[in-house]
């Protein structure tokens, strides 16, 4: 039998929002574009204690004939968590959760990309979570958008994602890890910021219809804040001479 002594859980339960944030505040956010040498586009993002790296190759020649699309590019996405990114080491390799998130990320980004411009090619997006602290799928989508823009891929908008939910009976923006685990609902959302169109939506937990609408609005609000940082990251890369 193994007993574990730690102060972590105690701290979380004692405060209203454990890290002192207001219901509509996002965690500290930092985004940098163009951080890798070999990839066509890349971005590194820190969101709370999340550390996510996204890279893009493409458009590039695609060799798997049966998936080739004659009149547009194929968008492929691989979301992966590093073994050391979580408290209990994660075995390397894709698990079911990673596969689901990979699919959702691809579907969240596809509406924005001008895929028709590149027939018979692929655009490959790789997302690595180096450290996880709740909300990695949203952080991944946000970083991937910046990487796509950095790679020079034409898009209608830069997709951005943020989650909202309910914890301690309060509808809140941007759940931390504890709020995600111990809270009452989690609603990750991705939008194209210019039009507000929703490209990713999931929900788990228990919410009334009103609460859901509140959460959706909060998530979209969070997205708009994060969108500003995405744009800054790209413009900073090119000097702001």
């Amino acid at each position, binding site marked *: 039998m193994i007993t574990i002594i730690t102060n972590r859980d105690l701290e979380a339960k004692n405060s209203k929002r454990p890290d002192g944030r207001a219901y509509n505040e996002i965690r500290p956010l930092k985004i940098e574009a163009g951080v890798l040498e070999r990839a066509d586009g890349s971005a590194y993002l820190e969101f709370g204690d999340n550390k996510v790296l996204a890279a893009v190759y493409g458009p590039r020649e695609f060799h798997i004939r049966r998936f080739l699309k004659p009149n547009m590019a194929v968008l492929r996405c691989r979301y992966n968590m590093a073994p050391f990114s979580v408290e209990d*080491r994660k075995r390397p390799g894709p698990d079911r959760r990673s596969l689901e998130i990979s699919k959702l990320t691809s579907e969240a980004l596809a509406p924005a990309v001008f895929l028709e411009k590149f027939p018979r090619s692929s655009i490959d997006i790789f997302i690595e979570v*180096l450290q996880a602290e709740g909300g990695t799928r949203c952080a991944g989508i946000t970083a991937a958008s910046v990487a796509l823009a950095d790679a020079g891929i034409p898009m209608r908008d830069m997709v951005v994602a943020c989650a909202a939910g309910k914890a301690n009976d309060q509808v809140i923006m941007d759940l931390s890890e504890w709020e995600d685990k111990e809270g009452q609902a989690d609603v990750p959302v991705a939008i194209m910021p210019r039009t507000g169109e929703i490209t990713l939506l999931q929900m788990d937990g228990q919410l009334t219809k009103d609460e859901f609408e509140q959460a959706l609005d909060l998530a979209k609000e969070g997205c708009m804040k994060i969108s500003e940082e995405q744009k800054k990251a790209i413009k900073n890369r090119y000097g702001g001479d």
Partner: protein
Amino acid sequence: MQPIVPEITRESVTNLINKGERADGRKLDQYREISLETGVIKKAEGSARVKIGNTQIMIGVKTQIGEPFPDTPNVGVFMTNSELLPMAAPNFEPGPPDERSVELSRVTDRGIREGKIIDLEKMAIIPGKKVWMIFIDMHILDYDGNLLDAAALGAMAALMNAKFPTATVKDDEVVIDHEKLQPLPLNEKAVMCTLAKIGNELVVDPSLEEEGIMGARISIGIRSDGAICSMQKGGERPFEKEEILKAIDIAQEKTKELFKFLPKA
């Protein structure tokens, strides 16, 4: 699939090296710029981010309680794993580790294991039943040549950076105290130096371009007390005995510089 190197590039790089120069202006025995940061991933017990030129690796060290190997019941366990992430190069594909990735893990592991870097005897908790397991996970983020030296340096730094909980035994039960952290019991330090044979010369720290045209490479793992603790030849061309001996001399000199990048013990 290895990318095809243009014939004219092969010629120009080889000619330069035969004259004692390299395409990026380095001397034959010069490393590219090296940077090493530790403690970058707080969720890991130990971590390091290493860059040699543009080659970049993120290494995490995690500890876990587990069972010992049956033939060594009183000794802790450590395992090294590497992932050549598809983002690191256009020709890296997602999937289980291929032979390159496995070689990288095993060679890095060998330097630490055979160099007796970690005092595994101090990692037993209940002999025969419960021991500490150390996982070294190397995530290759950007590949620009010479993964072996970067991996060895980064793995060593991550081990030195690691702090793990104390485990005590009370009434046949294991009590893990996350508030009382201790460094890993390390006896020694080891790093690796790789030389590539191009034309008639040996060059230290081959760049991506140089790896594409080299005939063979020799990687030598050296401990801070000068002992050679691992060696690996790669590539499809042969070496002469004198070349290997010369490589060892160069490696023993160059690794002195590499040790300076490690955190102060």
